[in-house]
């Protein structure tokens, strides 16, 4: 083992830096959560104080529950995020498998074409997308968002996953073929489990921008019944008056589901099931 790595001074410095970074990253979240439990006056008087007996108030959460269909927004966000992620992972992995596994004409061109999507932001095409959605009658449906997010996520997913799939042992896939497994079985049963950490990475990368997006919900699905959580929270932010209690409470509650999804995926990131497959 490298001596420098086990040096206690280095270890302390390393952990110190990591802890500092964690604190900085968590600070805004912390401020949002403590203030969501305070009265409006307490928020402005001492934004960094913890709620005490005097300043404790659930008024924000009550407003959120009363006003607007918060649970519907929540449900919309959840459906859009989960369905988009499923599509991104499924189609992304399939495309990546085809690109990495099969020799066909235009393989390289196709790969480059898909990678191009990483460099061009999808928002440039907003007007065209809106026109398309109007033409197909998908405006104000969750499908509009799901389709756009899937398109947005696919290029990076294909790019990352095809790199990982190239590393999956050819012998393993060939053994499956000799044993009579179909290409679909080889893909789902042999290859996917081995690239699970990469799938989790792609999922985490895509999940947060989708969950937090305000742009496309505002343009493509602003109707009451298709509002997402981020868009729904905007009702509390006015041009002249902002209901900070409600905004902070809504945001605090919006953090939870992403957190749960993140925990699920990050477990996959860590778990290495591949040992023993080859060599």
């Amino acid at each position, binding site marked *: 083992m490298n001596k420098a790595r086990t040096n206690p001074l280095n270890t302390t410095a390393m952990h110190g830096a990591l802890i500092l970074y964690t604190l900085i990253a968590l600070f805004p979240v912390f401020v949002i959560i403590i203030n969501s439990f305070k009265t409006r006056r307490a928020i402005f008087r001492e934004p960094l104080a913890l709620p005490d007996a005097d300043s404790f108030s659930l008024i924000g959460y009550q407003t959120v529950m009363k006003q607007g269909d918060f649970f519907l927004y929540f449900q919309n966000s959840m459906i859009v995020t989960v369905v988009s992620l499923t599509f991104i992972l499924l189609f992304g992995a399939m495309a990546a498998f085809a690109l990495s596994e099969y020799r066909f004409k235009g393989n390289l061109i196709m790969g480059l074409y898909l990678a191009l999507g990483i460099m061009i932001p999808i928002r440039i095409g907003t007007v065209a997308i809106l026109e398309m959605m109007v033409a197909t009658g998908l405006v104000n449906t969750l499908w509009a968002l799901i389709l756009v997010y899937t398109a947005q996520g696919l290029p990076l997913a294909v790019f990352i996953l095809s790199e990982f799939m190239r590393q999956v042992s050819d012998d393993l896939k060939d053994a499956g073929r000799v*044993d*009579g*497994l179909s290409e679909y079985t080889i893909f789902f049963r042999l290859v996917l489990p081995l690239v699970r950490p990469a799938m989790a990475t792609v999922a985490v990368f895509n999940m947060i921008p989708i969950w937090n997006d305000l742009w496309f919900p505002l343009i493509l699905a602003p109707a009451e019944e298709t509002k997402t959580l981020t868009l729904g929270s905007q009702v509390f932010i006015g041009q002249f008056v902002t209901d900070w209690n409600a905004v902070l409470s809504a945001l605090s509650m919006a953090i939870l589901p992403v957190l749960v999804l993140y925990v699920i995926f990050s477990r996959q990131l860590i778990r290495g099931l591949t040992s*023993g*497959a080859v060599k």
Partner: protein
Amino acid sequence: MTALTLQNVNKSFGKVEVLKDINIEVEDGEFVVFVGPSGCGKSTLLRVIAGLEDVTSGEVRIGGELMNLTPPSKRGIAMVFQSYALYPHLNVRKNMSLALKQEGQSKQVIDERVAKASKMLNLEPYIDRYPSELSGGQRQRVAIGRAIVREPKLFLFDEPLSNLDAALRMNTRLEIANLHQQLDASMIYVTHDQTEAMTLADKIVVLRDGRVEQVGSPMELYNNPANQFVAGFLGSPSMNFFPASLIGESADITTGIRPEDLFLTDDGPISAQITHVEHLGGDTNVIAQMQDHQITARLFGQHQVTAGQPVRFGYAVDRTYRFDPQGVRLS
């Protein structure tokens, strides 16, 4: 009956020709070894036979039937891979039975064959373990078991021993030889190791640059190599080559003498300076410099010679080989 016939098989990837006009026959029950340096196309040839690659032209017949377009699982073959390629999410029993399930065999047949194979390979104690819980040798036996249960017409081995350590390699080599006797099936075995080729094969196919250089029994190839490449590839240490002018013959002929055919003698025709001595106990390898050519002599028993010492080697004239400038053997 022939187990496998390859007729004018060509394979190219784009413009690169990997296999050029291969013609090989494998008889029933024969153990055939494809041997050659890395990049000679031997693994590609095996994959063509398995159906994992399509031929560019030519015919692949297994058991007399044309198999050019038959998918691997329908060819009646089983393959053992270099990296074992066990299914990581299945235990030993399921690894072995998967192919049979795909074939639609009854549960009874599957259990019977798995039990037979695991007994043959001493895998019974590990039958419920996962690949990650097995050692390298055990994994290789599972990979072989997975091939056996299918009771194929033809076994294909792709460098099955190269991931094992030296001691295990020797044991597994013997196991494979035993297996061949017990199963009485045709086997094709790919390796770059000439020792494996010599010890296992009924018939060796030497490949170079996608071409078959020579086909024959191990002793035929050893005693009667068709060209300089085969002569140099088989035998360890490999054959000495030097211009025939050094022993008083025409200069454009290359002479080859096997290290074991050289012996020390005071009035031998080859005079050289010893540069290195390897004492192996049973025999002694003497590496010497003859003008600017290195020659190796393998002397039986133990000899007290040291580096720097001048020596003279003798040889029997009928044990020398002569090759023309293109490397073709001259009789």
